[in-house]
């Protein structure tokens, strides 16, 4: 009787251990792909933000000073993210960002001088 109880406890412990190990294994296997997709998402997010911010250059003249200031701030926060990219991409997108930020700053300056 005692033997049966011990046997059942051991079996339960083994099953529990295997179940936990399985869960950990699943997580371990899923780990790299999850981080890769996170990296992809991070990459996509800077690209989306870049496209969004720099797509507005044609409308720069129509923006208020507050809107232009906000666009400049968004450009500035994009810079460190672009600096982390590979050399070629960094070179291209930093130059594109410089041009786009430069225009917003130029128009903002024009608007400030107009008000004076």
């Amino acid at each position, binding site marked *: 009787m005692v033997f049966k109880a011990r046997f059942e406890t051991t079996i339960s412990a083994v099953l529990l251990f295997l179940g936990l190990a399985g869960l950990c294994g699943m997580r371990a296997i899923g780990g790299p792909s999850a981080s890769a997709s996170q990296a992809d998402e991070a990459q996509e997010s800077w690209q989306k933000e870049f*496209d969004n911010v720099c*797509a507005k*250059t*044609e409308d*720069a003249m129509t923006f208020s000073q507050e809107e232009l200031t906000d666009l400049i701030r968004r450009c500035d926060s994009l810079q460190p993210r672009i600096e982390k990219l590979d050399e*070629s991409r960094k070179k291209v997108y930093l130059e594109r960002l410089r041009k786009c930020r430069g*225009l917003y700053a130029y128009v903002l300056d024009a608007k400030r001088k107009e008000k004076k």
Partner: protein
Amino acid sequence: MNKKIFISVALIVVFCGLFCSLALSQTGTKKKRPLPYEYGRVIIDNYSEKANLAPVVFEHWIHRSMFTCRVCHVDIGFAMKAGATDIKAADNAHGYYCGTCHNGKMVADGKTVFQACSRKVNLEDEKRCERCHSYGRKVASDFDFFQFSQPLPKERFGNGLDWEKSEELGLIKPASFLPGVSGQKNSLAVQKDFALNAKVEGMPNIIFSHKKHTVWNGCELCHPDIFMGVKRGTVKYSMVDISQGKSCGACHTTVAFPLTDCQRCHSKPVQP
């Protein structure tokens, strides 16, 4: 007596030679006016010769017939000064700069655009490399300037072509959007043309067409890098500065119609 004359002549020749070389070193030599098919040509040699390759010969005329200035100089990121982009073969191989289009995949006019640089190169690739790395070599091109220019309206200077009219007539259709590279933008509100006063009396004033410039360039290609002045009239432009490549000279000494074509800018009729 003969010996004295000989020495005098020799001294005069040496003196003249020294004077001329000194004068030339101070004022420079007169530039040869480029032929129509040479106008806008850029020689790129940041790394080519170090890699035992001929420098790259870039022809603006063929590229500008297909794309607006902003596609290359804003969206792809080419600098406005020759050599300033610092293009590396790896950049092209990764699909940037020349490699944006020259990737062996893009199709233009029914032809696949040849690949610019690749990570692995073998002997068979030599001919492909030579298509760009062609300075000082006789390399056959797919495009012939004379054939290309035949149906286009003519002008006197630069490439000898009226590019603006060519587009108006639909003879060229430069694309202003490159899928996957250019951002989706709203169409630009038409900017007003304005007049700039000429400094010399009797010289017609300049009509600056904002519209013509923004259609091909957008805003950020010129502002603030080329034109920094915010308030009209605060920056003084001079022909000396322009001829040295400043302001209008950034394009109008290299690719767009040259400064010798005075009346294309100085076009406002003079009041009697």
